[in-house]
C-alpha cells in the first residue's frame, strides 16, 4: 500500500551503518575510555582528594554547627548583603519553616554544596569571560563549547564524570559547575564587550596598561552584568542539586529524588519548596547587593 512498495529499499530505510559496525565502534570507545580511567584512577583520586576533603569539611561545618549559630550567621550575611529588613525577616521565616519540617540538616548540605559550586563557577567563569572579551578567537572557540554545555542533557555528561570520579560529592560538584558556569562566562564576556568605547578610549589616552584598563574601567563598568551572571549561576546551581543527587550528593535534592521514585507527593513538595525558599534568599540578597554597588548610576539631575 505504502509508497515504499514501489521504491528501492535504499530510499525507504535510512542507510545506517550496520549494527555490528556501530557495536564495534561503541565497544572500542567505551573500552578505551574505561581502560584510560582504570589506568589513571589512582592519579585522579589523589588529584581530587583535597577537593573531597574540603567538601566534606564544609558540609560537616554546616551540618554539625549548632543551628542558632548558622541561622544568625545567615541573617547577618543576608542583612549586610541586602540592607533590607524585609529580606532578613523573610530569610528567618523561611529557615524557621525548613527547620520545623525537619529539613534543617538536608538544607545545610544543599547550602554547603551550592555555596562551593557557586564560588567555583564564579572563580572559573570570570577569567574565562575576560579572556573571551579580550580575544575574539577565544570567544569563537568557547561559545560553541558553552552551547554544548547548555543544551547537552546533564545526565549525559554525568556518565563520563561518574566513570572518572565515581559516586560522591566531587562528581556532583563537577556536574553542577558545568551546568552553572555558562551564564557566568557569557555575561562576563558580554558585560566587558558592552563597556562604553569612549571611556575605554579615555583610559587609553591617559596611558593605561591592559591590566589598569581591566581593573579601573572594564570590570567596574561591566559589574551590573557580571552581578546578573553571578545571580544566574546561583539559581542554576540550586536547580542542579536535584540532578547531582543522582550521583551521590545528599541534601534536599536526594529527598526529591526519593520522592520521585516512591511517588511521595508531600515529601517532594516540601523539599521542593525548601529549595525555592533558599533560591529566593540567595536571589534577593545578591540582587540587592548588586544594586547597591550601582547606586552611583542613579540620576539626580542632568
Amino acid at each position, binding site marked *: 500500500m505504502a509508497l515504499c512498495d514501489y521504491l528501492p529499499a535504499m530510499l525507504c530505510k535510512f542507510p545506517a551503518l550496520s549494527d555490528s559496525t556501530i557495536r564495534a565502534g561503541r565497544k572500542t570507545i567505551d573500552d578505551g575510555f574505561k581502560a584510560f580511567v582504570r589506568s589513571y584512577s589512582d592519579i585522579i583520586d589523589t588529584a581530587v582528594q583535597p577537593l573531597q576533603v574540603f567538601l566534606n569539611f564544609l558540609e560537616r561545618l554546616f551540618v554539625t554547627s549548632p543551628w542558632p549559630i548558622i541561622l544568625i550567621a545567615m541573617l547577618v550575611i543576608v542583612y549586610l548583603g541586602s540592607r533590607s529588613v524585609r529580606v532578613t525577616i523573610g530569610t528567618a521565616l523561611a529557615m524557621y519553616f525548613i527547620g520545623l519540617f525537619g529539613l534543617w540538616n538536608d538544607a545545610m548540605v544543599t547550602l554547603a554544596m551550592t555555596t562551593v559550586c557557586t564560588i567555583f563557577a564564579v572563580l572559573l567563569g570570570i577569567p574565562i569571560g575576560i579572556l573571551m572579551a579580550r580575544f575574539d578567537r577565544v570567544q569563537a572557540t568557547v561559545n560553541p563549547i558553552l552551547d554544548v554545555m547548555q543544551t547537552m542533557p546533564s545526565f549525559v555528561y554525568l556518565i563520563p564524570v561518574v566513570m572518572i570520579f565515581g559516586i560522591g560529592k566531587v562528581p556532583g560538584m563537577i556536574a553542577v559547575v558545568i551546568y552553572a558556569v555558562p551564564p557566568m562566562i557569557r555575561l562576563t564576556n558580554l558585560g566587558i564587550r558592552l563597556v562604553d568605547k*569612549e571611556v575605554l*578610549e579615555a583610559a587609553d589616552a*591617559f596611558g*593605561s596598561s591592559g591590566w589598569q584598563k581591566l581593573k*579601573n574601567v572594564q570590570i*567596574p563598568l561591566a559589574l551590573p552584568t557580571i552581578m546578573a551572571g553571578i545571580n544566574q549561576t546561583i539559581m542554576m546551581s540550586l536547580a542542579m542539586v536535584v540532578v547531582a543527587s543522582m550521583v551521590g550528593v545528599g541534601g534536599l535534592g536526594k529527598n526529591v529524588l526519593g520522592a520521585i521514585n516512591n511517588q511521595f507527593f508531600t515529601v517532594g513538595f516540601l523539599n521542593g519548596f525548601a529549595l525555592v525558599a533558599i533560591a529566593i534568599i540567595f536571589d534577593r540578597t545578591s540582587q540587592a547587593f548588586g544594586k547597591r554597588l550601582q547606586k*552611583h548610576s542613579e540620576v539626580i*539631575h542632568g
Partner: protein
Amino acid sequence: MASHAIEVRNLYKIFGPRGADYVDQVKNGLSKTDLNAQYGHVLGLQDINIAMPAGGVMVVMGLSGSGKSTLIRHINRLIEPTSGEVLYDGVDVCRMNERDLREFRRHKTAMVFQKFALLPHRTVVENTVYGLEIQGVPTAESEKRARYWIDRVGLSGFENHYPNQLSGGMQQRVGLARALTNDAEILLMDEAYSALDPLIRVDMQSVLLDLQKELKKTVVFITHDLDEALRLGDKIAILRDGRVVQQGTGQEIVLDPADDYITAFVKEVNRGRVINVETIMKPLAGNPEGLPIAKGTVLESAARAMTSAGQSVAHVVDEAGRPAGTLALDTIIAAMVTPIGHDEAQQAA
C-alpha cells in the same frame, strides 16, 4: 616646563584592512570617492601637513566626516597612521614602541572628550586623579593636585559627587580638570565643548582661555564651530574630506578665504570680533588724530571706544605707544560687514 611644537608631516590615513596598499595610488591622485567605490577603503586623512605652535592653541575645524577627530587621535596615536609622521620634540610618535607610547600618553598628553568619557562609578575627585593614579603618583599627592584643579575649573564642593549627578557642563569641567591634573604639555580637546549648551560653551571657552594665559600648553582643539575656532585659535586649520583646505590665523582665513567652501563658512562670522585694527589701518599722514587704540584690538572694541568718545577718527599705537597708523570709523564699518563678493560666491556654490 616649556611646551614644544607638534608637527604633522605627510600624514595619510586609509581605513580598511589593506589601507597601506593604496597610499601610493592616493598620492598619485586617486580620489576619496574612487577609493571607496573601487577598493572599498575609506580615505580618512590625506597629505596633512600642519605645524602646531608651541604653547599656543591650534584649532582644527571641519564638519562631521572631515577627519578632524581622526587627526587629533593621531597625535597620541589612538589611531595608527597609514603613513606619515607626527613629531613632538623631535620624536616621531608613530614610531614609538608600546612602552614609550604609554609613557608619552601618561606624561606628555592629556585629552578631553566630546562625550566626557568619565568613569561613572567614580566620584569627581576619583575621576580627576585618574591620570596620576595610572602614573603611580601616591594618593595623597594626586588628590591634592586634583582638588586644586577641581577648584580652578569651578567645581569646588562637588568633589564627592558622581558624574551622573552633574549637568553636562559640569561633567565637562571634570573632564577638563582630569586633563589638567595630569600636568601634561599637550592638551588634546576633541570637540570638547560641542555637546554643551551655547552659553555654557562660551563660559567654558573663557575658562580655557584664562587657564591658557598662565599654562601656555600646546593645545589642539577640535571643533565644527567657526566662531569657537576664531575665539580660541592662535592658528586654525580647516579640514574637508580629510584634506587641509586652509590654515592660518583667524584673520587670515576670514579676510582671505581659500575657496568657496571656506567663504561660505566665513560669511556668517562676526568679523568685528576677528579682525584687528592694524589689519585695516591706513598709513599715518601727518600727526596722529583722535584717540589712541592699541595694536591687536579687534574692530568691534575699537568702534565701541570711538563711538562712546564721539570721534570718527582714531590712530593705532604699537606696544611702545608709538603711533603706527590711522583709522576712520567708516573704514571699520566697511571691514565689519561681509564683502559683497562673498555673498555671490555663496550663491554660486
